C-alpha cells in the first residue's frame, strides 16, 4: 500500500503541465465603477465578446487540457444572460464551478437556476462594512443589495467566499469588516490587498495604504483567524509593496492558470495585457491546447531560463518565481526583470519612491472611477525606452 499522507508533503498543487485553473472573463461590462478595477482602461472597446457557443468550446477544450477549477468572472459575469447555461455545461464537463461576482444582477430566481445548473460556490465581493462608504467607493448604490445577496447565497446552501479588497480608505475599518464577515457566516474570507495594475495603478497614489495600516490589519486578521478556526478559512493577501518580497504571482507564468478574456484572448493571468510588447493569441484563431502548450506568449516566462540576475542565482526563485511579470514591466520597463517589489531588485527604489510619492503632503486628487471613456488610452503605449537602474 502506498504510504498514507500525514502531512503536506504528500499533497500536490502542481499542475504537472496542466492548467488546473481556467478563468473565464465573460464580459468587461459591469454596473459598478470601482476605481481599482483590474480590467483594461479601455474595457469598453472590447465589445466583441465570445458567444455562448464559443465559450462552450473553451470549456470543453479546457477540460480536455485537464482544468479542474473554473471561475466565471468579468466585469460582472451576471450581465450576461447565458451564465446559467454555461454553468450547466461546465458542471456536465466535471469542473468545480466558481462564480466570481459583485452580486449586482443576482436575484433569488437566478440563484435557484444557478444551483440547479450545478454551480459549486459563489465568491461575492464587498468593499466595506459601511453602506455609505461602499456606495461611494463603487460609484453606485450597492452595499444594501450585496448584504441581501450574501444572505441569499447562504440560505441556498452555497459555500460563500467573501472577497474584500482593501485600500487606504477601508483598512482602518478592518475590525468591523471582519465582524461583518462573521455575521454573514462566510465560509471563506479573502482579505486582499489590491494589486496595482490598470485602474488601481492609475489611482495608486490615493489607494495605497500606509505601512502602519497594513501591519495593524495583519495583526487583527491573525487574531480573527485563530478565533474562527474550524468555522471560516481566511486568506490575507499581504501587500507586496511593504513586504520586501515579491508575490509568487500565478504560481509561475503558464504553470496552472489560464485566463480567457471576453474577446477570446488567452492570457497567463488576467493582467497580462499590460505588457505592451507581447502579443497574446485568441481562442478564435487557435485551440486552447496550442495556446497553452505551444504559443510563444505562454512559453516566454515558463521555467527559469528567462530569468536575469538577481533571480537567476537566488534560492527564493523556487518560491516566488521572480514575482510578477506585469509589475516588472510596468515599473521597470522589462517584463523579464526581477519584480521590483523584491528588496533584492536593482529597481526596488521605484517601489520606495511610489510609497514616498503617495504620502507626500499634497492636495489629494479625485479617484478616477472605472467608467467608459473616463480616461483616454489613445496616446499611451508601452515604454519608450526601458530605464537603467541607478
Amino acid at each position, binding site marked *: 500500500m502506498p504510504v*498514507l*499522507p500525514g502531512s503536506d508533503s504528500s499533497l500536490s498543487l502542481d499542475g504537472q503541465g496542466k492548467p488546473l485553473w481556467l478563468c473565464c472573463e465573460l464580459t468587461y461590462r459591469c454596473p459598478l465603477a470601482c476605481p481599482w478595477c483590474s480590467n483594461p482602461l479601455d474595457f469598453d472597446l472590447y465589445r466583441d465578446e465570445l458567444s455562448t457557443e464559443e465559450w462552450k468550446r473553451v470549456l470543453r477544450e479546457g477540460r480536455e487540457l485537464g482544468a479542474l*477549477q473554473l471561475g466565471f468572472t468579468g466585469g460582472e459575469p451576471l450581465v450576461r444572460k447565458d451564465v446559467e447555461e454555461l454553468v450547466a455545461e461546465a458542471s456536465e464537463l466535471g469542473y468545480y464551478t466558481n462564480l466570481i461576482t459583485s452580486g449586482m444582477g443576482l436575484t433569488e430566481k437566478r440563484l435557484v437556476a444557478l444551483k440547479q445548473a450545478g454551480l*459549486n460556490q459563489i465568491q461575492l465581493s464587498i468593499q466595506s462594512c459601511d453602506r455609505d462608504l461602499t456606495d461611494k467607493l463603487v460609484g453606485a448604490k450597492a452595499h444594501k443589495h450585496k448584504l441581501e445577496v450574501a444572505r441569499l447565497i447562504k440560505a441556498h446552501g452555497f459555500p460563500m467566499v467573501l472577497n474584500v479588497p482593501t485600500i487606504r480608505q477601508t483598512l482602518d475599518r478592518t475590525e468591523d469588516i471582519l465582524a461583518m464577515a462573521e455575521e454573514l457566516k462566510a465560509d471563506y474570507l479573502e482579505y486582499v490587498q489590491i494589486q496595482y495594475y490598470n485602474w488601481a495603478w492609475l489611482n495608486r497614489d490615493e489607494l495605497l495604504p500606509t505601512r502602519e495600516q497594513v501591519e495593524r490589519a495583519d495583526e487583527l486578521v491573525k487574531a480573527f483567524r485563530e478565533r474562527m478556526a474550524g468555522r471560516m478559512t481566511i486568506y490575507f493577501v499581504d501587500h507586496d509593496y511593504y513586504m520586501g518580497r515579491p508575490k509568487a504571482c500565478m504560481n509561475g507564468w503558464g504553470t496552472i492558470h489560464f485566463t480567457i478574456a471576453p474577446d477570446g484572448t488567452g492570457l497567463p493571468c488576467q493582467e497580462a495585457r499590460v505588457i505592451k510588447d507581447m502579443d497574446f493569441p485568441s481562442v478564435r484563431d487557435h485551440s486552447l491546447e496550442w495556446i497553452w502548450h505551444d504559443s510563444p506568449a505562454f512559453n516566454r516566462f515558463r521555467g527559469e531560463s528567462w530569468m536575469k540576475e538577481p533571480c537567476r542565482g537566488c534560492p527564493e526563485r523556487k518560491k516566488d518565481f521572480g514575482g510578477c511579470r506585469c509589475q516588472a514591466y510596468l515599473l521597470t520597463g522589462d517584463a523579464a526583470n526581477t519584480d521590483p517589489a523584491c528588496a533584492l531588485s536593482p529597481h526596488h527604489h521605484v517601489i520606495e519612491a511610489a510609497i514616498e510619492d503617495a504620502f507626500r503632503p499634497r492636495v489629494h486628487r479625485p479617484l478616477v472611477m472605472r467608467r467608459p471613456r473616463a480616461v483616454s488610452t489613445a496616446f499611451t503605449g508601452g515604454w519608450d525606452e526601458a530605464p537603467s537602474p541607478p
Partner: protein
Amino acid sequence: MAADARVQLDDCFEINPMYLFRWEETQDSHVLLYPEGVVKLNEGAGAILSRCTGDKPVARIIEELKEIYSDPESNATLEKSLLEFLEVSHARGWIKLKS
C-alpha cells in the same frame, strides 16, 4: 469528537459537503475540490476518503483496506497511519462526523 480530539474506531465520517471529492482521470487520482483549491490525493488517501460515506465506522474502513493491501509489512503501520490521516483530514475540514 472535538476538532482536536482523537479519532475513535466507531466514528463514522462523511465528506464535508463544502468539498467535492471525486476521481479525476486527467490526474489519475482522486481529488478534493473546494472554493479556489484542489488537493490531489495519493492512492491510499483516495482509498480512505472514498470510504468516508457516513455509514462506515473507522474500524470497518481499516478492515477493508487491510483486505485490499495485504502486504503484512505495511499492514502493521496501516491502522496508525490511517487514524493519523483521518485526524489531519478532519482538522482540515475535508471530512466531518456523521451526525
